[in-house]
């Protein structure tokens, strides 16, 4: 297998899925955001977004903090250091492949 093909096969599959890639790419340049911001930006439905976030949290890429603003629940999301490193690696891998 040549280097380029190897780079493709080694891409992070958690990030590679388009929905999750959108989420990580949106979280990458910001400090934190809430669920509504991602919902507006990605135009996914709540269920899809929620399941992708759960998968990313499971992989340790996203930190989910549930708080309240008054009586209104608020979900804050941020990329972890591991998530940033993974996304950085993913970008490098993609560049190496193409």
């Amino acid at each position, binding site marked *: 297998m040549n280097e380029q093909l190897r780079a493709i096969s080694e891409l992070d599959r958690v990030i590679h899925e388009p929905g999750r890639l959108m989420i990580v*790419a*949106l979280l*990458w*340049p*910001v*400090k*934190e*955001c*809430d*669920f*509504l*911001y*991602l*919902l*507006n*930006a990605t135009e996914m439905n*709540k269920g899809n*977004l*929620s399941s992708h*976030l759960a998968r990313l949290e499971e992989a340790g890429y996203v930190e*989910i903090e*549930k708080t309240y603003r008054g009586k*209104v*629940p*608020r*979900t*804050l999301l941020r*990329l972890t*250091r591991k998530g*940033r*490193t993974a*996304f*950085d690696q993913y970008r490098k891998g993609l560049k190496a492949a193409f």
Partner: protein
Amino acid sequence: MERHKLYDNIDGTGEMFMGLMLLGFALLGYLQAILPEHSIWRTNMFASLLFMYAVLILVLGPGYLLRRVIKKHITWPRTGYVAGHSLWRLMLAPRLAGREAAPGVPTRKGLWYTMLALGFVAAIVAAGLACLVAFERRHFGAMTGLAGVGADIWVLYLAHGKGTPVEMAVIALHGAGASRNWSHRFRQFYRGGAVGDVLRWRCVGHLRLGYSVFIHPAHLPARC
């Protein structure tokens, strides 16, 4: 990926704050004009600086609080909350800790560009002020024109090429204001004319806020 930057002024609070800043400057000019000739606030440099800061803080402080309140109660429940990295996280903290910033955090390059742009603008303003001092009133028009061009560049940046009717109205309003400033002398812009600019920035801010509320209906609390 830089989408969060579009959210900075999605509600027009930046323009409202700009209007308040101009109001502060106009008020300062007015107060300095009506103060007695031998008042300590005019003759003593430190006292006049203190006076200037006090007036600006009195005007801008409530403006800052108003911006926070609008964002918290009107904007964020509709568009969602997003926060960029602080300057501390971007540059100072990693340097002090003797390490690189976390991967992906936009670091030095963007910051240096911003600082260069700010330096460039400051140099233009300084050159304009130097012209004012050196040639007195002959260059008031040029200075005002530069201020108008600067404001237009900023507005075009804020408009971020969406081309919606409200964005077009915003640009038209600012264009009209800038051309009015161009044709007037600096002193008129600074004193009497400033009221028009305050109103213009406030109107634009409210227009943008109204549009933002119109296109972003309030969501039910998000559950994840």
